[in-house]
């Protein structure tokens, strides 16, 4: 539905975030950056990428929820954002899967012509 707020004079729009919350979020983000640099130096036996992505997603969620105040907006706004992520995921899954499938042909060709791998 469209929104009809009839008093156009002194109406409240937007949501003011307390400064302490902003500071906490920023602190959390810096800590998580430190953490991801730290885990980046370790050998996590194949779990490096998932761990890094989980940390990045946590950071992204903090930015989205508080800095971008998604937490206080209408859920529909958040849905738009999730929709974009969903479509990127769909796109990624299809293309990566396909490229993985035909990679053998490319490698066979490359090794024939460049003498590598």
């Amino acid at each position, binding site marked *: 539905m469209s929104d009809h707020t009839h008093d156009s004079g002194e109406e409240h729009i937007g949501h*003011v975030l307390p400064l302490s919350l902003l500071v906490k979020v920023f602190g959390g983000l810096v800590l998580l950056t430190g953490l991801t640099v730290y885990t980046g130096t370790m050998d996590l036996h194949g779990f490096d990428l998932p761990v890094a992505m989980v940390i990045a997603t946590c950071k992204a969620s903090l930015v989205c929820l508080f800095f971008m105040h998604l937490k206080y907006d209408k859920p529909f706004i958040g849905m738009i954002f999730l929709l*974009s992520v969903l479509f990127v995921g769909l796109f990624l899954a299809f293309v990566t899967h396909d490229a993985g499938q035909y990679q053998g042909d490319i490698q066979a060709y*490359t090794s024939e012509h460049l003498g*590598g791998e």
Partner: protein
Amino acid sequence: MSTTTNDHGHGHDPNRPKHLAHHFESLGQQFDSGKLGIWVFLLTEVLFFSALFVAYTMYRSNYPEVFQYASQFLDTKMGAINTVVLLLSSFTFAWAVRNAMLGEKSKLMLNLLITLVCAGGFMGIKYVEYSHKFHEGTLWGGNESTIFKADPADVPAEMKEHSSAWNNTDGKYSVAVKDLDPAFRQKVGVFFGVYFCLTGLHGIHVMIGMILIVWLLLRTRRGDFGPTNFNAIDFGALYWHLVDLIWIFLFPLLYLIT
């Protein structure tokens, strides 16, 4: 369509706020429309970047060892500093939105200024990183002075001489580039193609953001913003946070591959 009877936006209504555009009925409707608009725009931005993330995933999943090798040419320390710089700018911009909503003009100016300085710092560090890569020849495959050519004969002679990555003179790298298998070396070039496109496109977005911040600063000085009129600041901040968001993913994906 009930409040503005027979007034069609010619400004006859004395109670009508100056910054309420003629085709909207209320500030709330104007704000909500703008908000939806900027979020839809951010959605297009996410999809705009998506192709490069898909390229990244595709090449990395097929050539993990290439990415592992190539990542050591990137300076993790610089990347980490840049991450914090960008996070700080996001924080000050979020604070600026709060200032605008509360009508604190001088604080708003200050926070926007800090954001702008951080953005400049980010680009400065980026510049240092880029120029180092041009010096070393750690570039994409089609560049003239890249050291990642399949055939070593195609690598310029001066690069072979002075590039420490090519000879591994300082022993920093696991294998000297000249000792790599040709096909492998070519794929490292692809990594740098993806790297430069991703960070380059992100850098362009940072620069657009800087122009945006300057514009917001000028408007702030003019006294455009107040508790019922902070849409531009809020939407500018949303754009800036998205730029930050993309870097949050770029940093571990490019710099932290072990």
